[in-house]
């Protein structure tokens, strides 16, 4: 018997019945039509209920149709695909809605005047005032917090990954994990009790000093665990072969870390730092507790109350005046744009060192 005749006689069937390409689209249109009709006829619910009903009808209809025509496996595949898309839309909807709301309400007051003046001498009922003082506050507080946190966090992660052996490294990792769960108000209270009430009186003739620097300290308590953990993950991703390659050239360990390992991990570390910065920029509670807020411009982070954008949004949103919500939205938009700009800038900066492929 030849091979050819053997394969011809027991030829395997590789073809399967498939729904036509237009079937899901037609089914979708049908589902929307039926759902709109049903919702309209009962007079019960609006566009949202129509959408939900249409989606349910579509999934059930497609599953049944596919099971009949194409068989069980393909039917399950189509259900899973529909669910994945549905989850994607559900996850994206709030994000898009928020971005839209923020843009439409925030742009009303956002202009050069808003960015250029403070709230000094502006009462809640004036159609005036801006967020200049708050932008200064956010930039200074987040900036100082970053300056404190990045060296500490990166060095801590380097210890854990490159040097730490045994108990101490495990202990540090455990406490970093614990720190991740600290609520921001607790960090604020800690700095209030430790820095503002105990340490700062020594530097200020015996009187406690509320300041932007204290807020920066509280923010760095919140940023530290994020920076340590993300840097740690990134350092672990650097292949051991690179370290060995460097050692084999007679390069000392610290130089290997500084010149080989850190540059390789830099883009990921920057992403982690920017996540922490974004979180710190959005924190309100510690700023209220230890920087108090200040309607006037205060450039000095070491002395006197200071506001921040998130605190500004909180204050304005809670003020009963027809102009305050506009200011709150504009402040919120400013904050988002600020964080976005910083993130994009940092990512570009980290990528610039990478060689062009």
């Amino acid at each position, binding site marked *: 018997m030849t091979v050819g005749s053997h394969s011809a006689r027991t030829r395997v069937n590789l073809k399967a019945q498939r729904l036509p390409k237009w079937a899901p689209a037609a089914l979708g249109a049908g589902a929307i039509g039926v759902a709109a009709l049903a919702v309209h006829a009962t007079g019960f619910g609006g566009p949202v209920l129509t959408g939900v009903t249409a989606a349910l009808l579509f999934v059930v209809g497609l599953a049944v149709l596919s099971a009949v025509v194409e068989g069980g496996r393909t039917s399950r595949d189509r259900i899973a695909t529909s669910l994945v898309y549905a989850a994607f839309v559900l996850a994206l909807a709030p994000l898009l809605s928020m971005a839209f709301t923020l843009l439409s309400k925030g742009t009303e007051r956002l202009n050069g005047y808003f960015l250029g003046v403070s709230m000094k001498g502006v009462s809640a009922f004036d159609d005036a005032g801006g967020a200049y003082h708050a932008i200064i506050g956010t930039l200074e507080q987040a900036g100082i917090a970053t300056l404190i946190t990045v060296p500490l966090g990166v060095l801590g992660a380097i210890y854990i990954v490159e040097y730490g052996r045994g108990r101490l490294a495990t202990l540090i990792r455990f406490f970093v994990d614990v720190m991740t769960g600290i609520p921001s108000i607790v960090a604020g209270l800690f700095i209030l009790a430790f820095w503002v009430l105990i340490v700062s009186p020594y530097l200020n003739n015996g009187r406690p000093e509320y300041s932007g620097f204290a807020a920066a300290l509280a923010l760095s308590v919140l940023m530290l665990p994020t920076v340590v953990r993300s840097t740690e993950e990134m350092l672990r991703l650097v292949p051991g072969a690179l370290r060995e*390659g*460097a*050692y084999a050239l007679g390069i000392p360990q610290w130089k290997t870390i500084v*010149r080989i390992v850190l540059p390789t991990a830099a883009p990921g570390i920057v992403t982690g730092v920017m996540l922490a910065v974004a979180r710190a920029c959005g924190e309100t509670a510690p700023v209220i507790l230890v920087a108090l807020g200040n309607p006037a411009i205060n450039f000095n982070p070491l002395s006197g109350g200071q506001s921040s954008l998130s605190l500004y949004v909180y204050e304005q949103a809670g003020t009963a005046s027809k102009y305050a919500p506009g200011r709150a939205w504009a402040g919120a938009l400013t904050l988002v744009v600020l964080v976005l700009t910083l993130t994009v800038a940092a990512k570009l900066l980290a990528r610039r060192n990478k060689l062009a492929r």
Partner: protein
Amino acid sequence: MAKRIEAVNVSAYYGSFRAIDNITMTIEPKSVTALIGPSGCGKSTFLRSINRMHEVLPGAKVDGQLMIDGQNIYDRDIDVTAVRRTIGMVFQRPNPFPTMSIYDNVVAGLKLNGVRRKAALDDACEKALRGANLWNEVKDRLNRPGAGLSGGQQQRLCIARAIAVEPQVVLMDEPCSALDPISTLAIEDLIAELKNQYTIVIVTHNMQQAARVSDRTGFFSIDSTGEPGRLIEYDDTAKIFTNPSVKRTEDYITGRFG
């Protein structure tokens, strides 16, 4: 620029597990010494203990003496980085530094050890790349990333990087096992040239390769899993492959041994 290496009763451990046991052998200068043997017999471990790379792994340590120029590299007052600069290493998988250009990869060892003068670095780069038979292929794109080269080119880049610091000895840990036959041929030709200047020790699983490139061959083996690796026979390559004096060597090179 080549040194004799004398290993005296060298044993290496991973934690409490003894990976190689009492290796004593003399590696001649300006020659190629091949280490062959089944997987897990400790030939890579021995190779890594020659330039103190074994101890990089946590819990790993080495006993015994490894003499180079009359100095035991495991003495307390030895500078590890100086040892590694004297005894370079090429790894199984090419590992160019991904953030560096071809040029920076080659001169990394010099630059990070304090050589600053541009002219000196340029000279060293060209010399090392010519030594690794890579100059003609990359001379017009020295500023391109090293990771953008082909596998065989990357391995020659790593060899150039290793010889740029002007070592006395070059250790190669299965340098061709991730490469295609043409790149392998290029590396083998290179080894034949390099032995005019350097002492070369190469670990290989490819016995034809050992027969082609080496002057002397050491056969390592283990009695069973969990036992330490031992040096079974060490002799001229021609003798090992034609008329070995130990039965186990013969079994291994003729393929009768697992």
